[in-house]
């Protein structure tokens, strides 16, 4: 069993109202020094087998077609180690 992580974030040019709302709230909560917050998704994918090249390619395809909406989101895939 291996675990692969897929991070999905809105593309930089796409508005992230959620991240903005958090960033705006921070000073009121006494946190300063934060320039920007962006919020995305993190998927933990447990594989039945090892995270070999074929499996990673599969996860990448999964990310491309299902986990991320590539019209507005970028994704990255990595094996947790």
């Amino acid at each position, binding site marked *: 069993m291996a675990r692969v992580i897929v991070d999905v974030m*809105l593309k930089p040019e796409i*508005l992230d109202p959620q991240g903005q709302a958090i960033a705006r709230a921070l000073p009121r909560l006494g946190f300063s020094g934060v320039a920007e917050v962006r919020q995305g998704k993190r998927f933990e994918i447990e594989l039945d087998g090892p995270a070999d090249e074929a499996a990673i390619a599969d996860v990448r395809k999964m990310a491309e077609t299902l986990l991320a909406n590539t019209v*507005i989101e970028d994704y990255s895939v990595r094996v947790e180690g």
Partner: protein
Amino acid sequence: MSERHSIAADSVQRAAETPDEQMPFAELGMKQDEYDRVKEILGRRPTGSELAIYSVMWSEHCSYKSSKVHLKQFATKAPKSEALLVGMGENAGVVDIGDGWAATFKIESHNHPSYVEPHQGAATGVGGIVRDIMSMGARPIAVMDSLRFGGADAVDTRRVLPGVVEGISHYGNCLGLPNIGGEVVFDPCYIGNPLVNALCVGLLRKDQIKLATAPGPGNQVVLFGASTGPDGIGGASVLASATFEDESHAKRPAVQVGDPFMEKLLIECCLELYAADVVVGIQDLGAAGVSCATTELAAKGTGGMRVDLNLVPLRDPSLRPEEILMSESQERMMAVVRPADVPAFMAICEKWDVPATVIGEVTDTGRLVMTWDGETIVDIPPGTAADEGPVYERPFHEPAGQAALNIDSPDRLDRPTDLRATLLQLLGSPNLASKEWVTSQYDRYVRSNTVLAQPADAGMLRISERWSSGGESEARANEPRSGRDHEHEAIDGAEPTTRGIALATDGNGRYARLDPYAGAQLALAEAYRNVAVTGAKPLAVTNCLNFGSPEDPEVMWQFAEAVRGLADACKILGVPVTGGNVSFYNQTGTTAIHPTPVVGVLGVIDDVAKRVRTGFVAEGLRVALLGETLEEFGGSEWAHVAHGHLGGLPPVADLEAEQALATVLVEAARRGLLEGSHDLSDGGLAIALAESCLARGVGATVTLGEDPFVELFSESAGRALVAVAPERFEEFAALCGDHEVPCHGLGVTGGTSLVVEGVLEVPVSELRDRHSAALPALFG
């Protein structure tokens, strides 16, 4: 991108010095003769920023250049209506609904964006129409959504529909606007071109209407709401004026993402600004963003405005002036404010956490002048961009196959012998099945004034006084929270009025395909009827005209016919068109969608306690069918579901009969004669009976004449089903007689089954299973 950069610093001075510089007008969707016209207006070549403004303002989407000559009929044929306070041409029409109250409502499309990114496309569609309503000075009080998708089992429908519904649900729910109705229709013709038409209705006091105008030199121009980012740059012209295939990937504009939270703040902020009387003119930022707001405000005011584009707050600091001018970033408004009121204006924005910036001022020069880095980059007469766009008399002719289509009558189709099976087949088909999978994702209760919502024929809202956008009660409800002296001030939960408004939207693309003139009339007739069956008197009309490419003469013929039909029908029914929206280019390659005029009707009821609920609400009521049933199967749901057939002619639209029917329904409701009602439409009497039983699980036993198939499944217009207490039936029948509305007693309500004597018997529970299972089975 690079081409834009190369013209970024283009100033008026430079334009004058380099008259021969090649400008990318074609890439921005502009034709050579349109470009020549701009040069003629300016007496020189346009700067890059000016070209950006003219290209978006003269796009089909903003200028209505192909539709204008036809839409004129809505004004020239308009019936006299004392109720109309603001007609077409403003952000939305306004109608007088009595007691000093006015309602403003409008329907608008967001079709292409919803195909590209269903969730955000549909969400921003709601956001846009809500801002239109706000800009009239009203508090938005409800939304509706009229949707068309490809085949229900098509793979892409599974991508588009859930996203669209989620987008509408999330945005509308977040704004606290009840969703009180709409439509969900499936037809393979919409694959690749789904239709997402959103309607918003708002309420205001008659004397508080706000207009998009910028009078008074010296008044300040304030941009408020979200900051400006690279959202949908070029969208207005590229996305709305070109087909998807033409659009190169590189040119595809970034998707606009909606922030419903910001919009909610904007709503409350605007209402407080109106109440404080610190707004002279206001305009929402829609498809053409800053270009549209500045040119339209300036054109309708004293005629001049000066704007420093460097002052526009940016989300992405690298944006160029052309991009700022074309950005479609959501949740922005522009107001004209007297200089002395600016501090009060800013304080209210700050209270609501809404960023606001003065970016310019009104002048009396008759010119819209914009600067960037100290240089003049725009200097134009604003009216030429806002109002004097090109107007096309596009050629049109009847489609080549139209006659053959009309000759291919459904008479040749095999008719069923097992009518029970046919009823269940239709009831479980995607177009007639319960839409609860969709509507349960919408908040229909918020604001606590919803009298009727799904599955009623029309949505109905009580007019509660606290909706006033500047009246005493609203002010008291909003202010105590901060700002002025509010020690111990209570929200007194202002007494609601008894008055109500009702709204319905309808449209049938198959009917319009067979005959666009009649199809548009039938859409109006159905919405009108849906309002009347609830007891409300139809008052005014909005419409969204969804068609293929206007450059195709056959599509243009459909459009011309539909507009002519709708305008003629409005005249006969005495309900004016107050506004609407045209969506062209809904086509893939040379294949256009069915012409799909969607019509919204708003009605008024003096006392919501007199409203009539949908269906059979109790046992032992007399059931009657109003109106005449002919043998009409062209474009019917039966022909579609049982045979996949589309041909012949749609039902006859007899508008005088429609009007008589509505008169009877409204008067009967006023006298309290109706216990329940339901209009007949798709699927005919069979479906109306089944839905009436499903409303509260009350069955019925009815008797039909000689040809039960025709009586059950024909789709003749101008009909409704009513349930009347036995002791009042005679009075009701007499009322029908007075207005020459045929009234056929069919039977009585009661029991746990729908029984058509000698024809079929189905337990209500079986009807329910069929009706409710279809959409969940498809969409999870």
